[in-house]
């Protein structure tokens, strides 16, 4: 009888030890998981520190059933933006950048604006370039978000953390986006391409957690000749080379701390 009681006690002790070990393991894993750095939206400084300093995300707008603007004849915007993305990818690769594109072809079921923003945000790039083309206006139009720059929270202050709404994700990067647009505008002026800068309420610009600029390529007015359409490969090549050069300069400025 006493032997049996000892056996029972031993068995329950073993169970308790196993139960304690399992519980401790689960708690330890949970604590370790919480200790990992969480990707947070909205705070530019946090995101900048983890950004891939050599990666550019290209977003050729439209695709599939969404053809975008008609640029005359059979030419539609989605084909022009894709062609421009190809030119820009080559120019950026030559300038030493890595490139991720949200669209490499013309899929029948294109990604939504939110999905394209998600691809860009997950890549944590140095900059995001949204490509558009138009048959109206002239030259190159550079657009940044209409959002105001969000106030930077105090680093390490847990009380200062506030969730950033998806539609205002760009707010923490507005200053950097303006700096990038400024560099691009200066580069276009230097290259002899007329450029207009402005702000636009445009998806997915407001959802991007990286310095982001939308570039709309409109026909280039040439003195004494017909306007050069946005679909012209030579024009696209000039635009691509200028953007790549501007990004290189802006990257250097950012590295030296002169850009925000």
């Amino acid at each position, binding site marked *: 009888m006493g032997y049996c009681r000892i056996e029972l006690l031993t068995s329950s002790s073993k169970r308790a030890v196993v139960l304690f070990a399992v519980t401790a393991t689960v708690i330890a894993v949970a604590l370790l998981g919480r200790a990992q750095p969480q990707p947070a939206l909205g705070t530019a400084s946090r995101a900048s520190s983890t950004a891939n300093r050599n990666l550019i995300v290209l977003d050729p707008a*439209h695709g599939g059933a*969404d053809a*975008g*603007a*008609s640029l005359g004849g059979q030419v539609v*915007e989605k084909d022009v933006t894709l062609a421009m993305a190809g030119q820009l990818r080559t120019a950026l690769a030559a300038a030493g950048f890595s490139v991720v594109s949200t669209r490499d072809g013309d899929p029948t079921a294109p990604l939504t604006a939110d999905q394209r923003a998600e691809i860009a945000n997950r890549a944590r790039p140095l900059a995001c370039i949204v490509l*558009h083309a*138009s*048959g*109206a*206006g*002239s030259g190159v*139009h*550079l*657009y*940044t978000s*209409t959002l105001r720059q969000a106030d930077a929270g105090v680093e390490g202050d847990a009380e200062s953390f*506030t*969730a950033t*709404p998806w*539609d*205002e994700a760009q707010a923490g990067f507005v200053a950097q986006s*303006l*700096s990038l*647009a*400024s560099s691009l*505008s*200066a580069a276009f*002026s230097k290259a002899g391409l007329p*450029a*207009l*800068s*402005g*702000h*636009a*309420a*445009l*998806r997915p610009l*407001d959802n991007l957690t990286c310095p982001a600029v*939308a570039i*709309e390529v*409109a026909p280039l007015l040439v003195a004494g000749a017909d306007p050069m359409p946005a679909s012209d490969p030579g024009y696209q090549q000039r635009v691509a080379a200028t953007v790549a050069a501007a990004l290189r300069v802006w990257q250097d400025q950012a590295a030296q701390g002169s850009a925000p």
Partner: protein
Amino acid sequence: MISRYHRILFWTLTGAILLMGFVLLHGCRQAREKLSRQRDLTPLAAPVAGASETVQLEVANDADGSITLVDRELALPSEATARTRTLLARMIAEYSYKGSRHVLESGPAIDDVFLLDLPIRPAVEPGSAADSNSAQDSSNSGQPQNEGGQLAVINLNGEFADHHPSGIEAETLTIDSIVGTLYANFPRIEQVRFLVDGQPRETLNGHADLLRTYAVIDMTTNKSAPREGPSQ
């Protein structure tokens, strides 16, 4: 035995009857169409002579992406929503005139305008459960900047949106022009939302976001409109 002469006469008369019948039917159809066209234009109420007043329009220019304030003389109805609708319709019509620097197709553009007093939602007590639930919505949409502030809901015509020139610049300038014209003429309107044919729509024609609430500000200062050269 019927003579050849009688047979020719019979078929000739039959043909004439058919021809007259066809002409009569065609004439009736044309008359009905004419009447139905006139019915649309038939005035139902006696015209009221209204004194014209000076209004300010913020008109866009595609060439340099600017928005300029211009004065126009216009007779406006007294009722607020009809007044807003008439003014915006006049402003859009400006773009279909010869020599416009922001060319849009002529035709009806604004179906309706609704003016709603802000705040749309009741104020939430700080720290309440409802307040914590609405923490995600950090924007000030739905809340007035000043007492008596209004939200204008503009219902655009679907044909207008579908045939609007597609592009960031063209669409942004149209939106900015509407917002700026409201700012210049209706100080109580603080925010604007857009519908197309009574339904929310993602973009005007592929670019300008129509799902957001626009703050009514002066667009001639180029706060939102494109501006030349480096932006900083």
